[in-house]
């Protein structure tokens, strides 16, 4: 695999990493809890894509299994978080 061959995946990965940084800034800034949950959810999606790209670039097919797991954990985490937020109002 030549270096020019890999560069497109690398550019995509860098774009998505940039997006992840922006989502992280939103998670830090808030201002409401819902913004943070949304940012964490988006960040999780970005992580899944990054894992798939890393698996392709590094030529490791095992990364795809972890990506499936992360997609599931991300969704379950968001739903569980929201159940807490809805049922016990522990924030203003």
């Amino acid at each position, binding site marked *: 695999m030549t270096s020019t061959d890999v560069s497109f995946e690398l550019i*995509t990965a860098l774009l998505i990493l940039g997006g992840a940084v922006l*989502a992280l800034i939103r998670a830090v800034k808030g201002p409401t809890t*819902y913004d943070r949950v949304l940012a964490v959810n*988006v960040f999780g999606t970005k992580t899944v894509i990054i894992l798939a790209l890393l698996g392709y670039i590094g030529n490791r097919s095992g990364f795809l299994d972890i990506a*499936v797991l992360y997609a599931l954990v991300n*969704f379950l985490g968001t739903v569980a978080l929201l159940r807490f937020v809805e049922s016990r109002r522990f924030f203003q």
Partner: protein
Amino acid sequence: MMEHVAHGLMILGGFFAFSGSLGILRMPDFYSRLHPAGTADTLGQMLVFAGLALKVITVSLAEEAPVDGLSIGKLIAISLLLFVTTPASTHAIARAAQLGGLKPWTGEKEREDTDE
């Protein structure tokens, strides 16, 4: 030819994912932030995974190796999973916010940083 299509799909997907995050950072209010999170991200991940699957097929065709069907199946599975779960979780967050009594921004003064 197919390789260029795959690269184009990937870059386009990366662009959509990035612009979705930019929207989440730049939009003025929570409900408007849902829009880039739900739509741009879903499209972005689909394009990236389609590009990756196409790339796997092209590379194995070029090397005259058997196509790795399992990897492509996993890529499609992840993409479908995200296609279902991203809008669903966005919807759940919006519903929770509405039930929690968060008022949408209606155009008066900036309401950023009201909580901090």
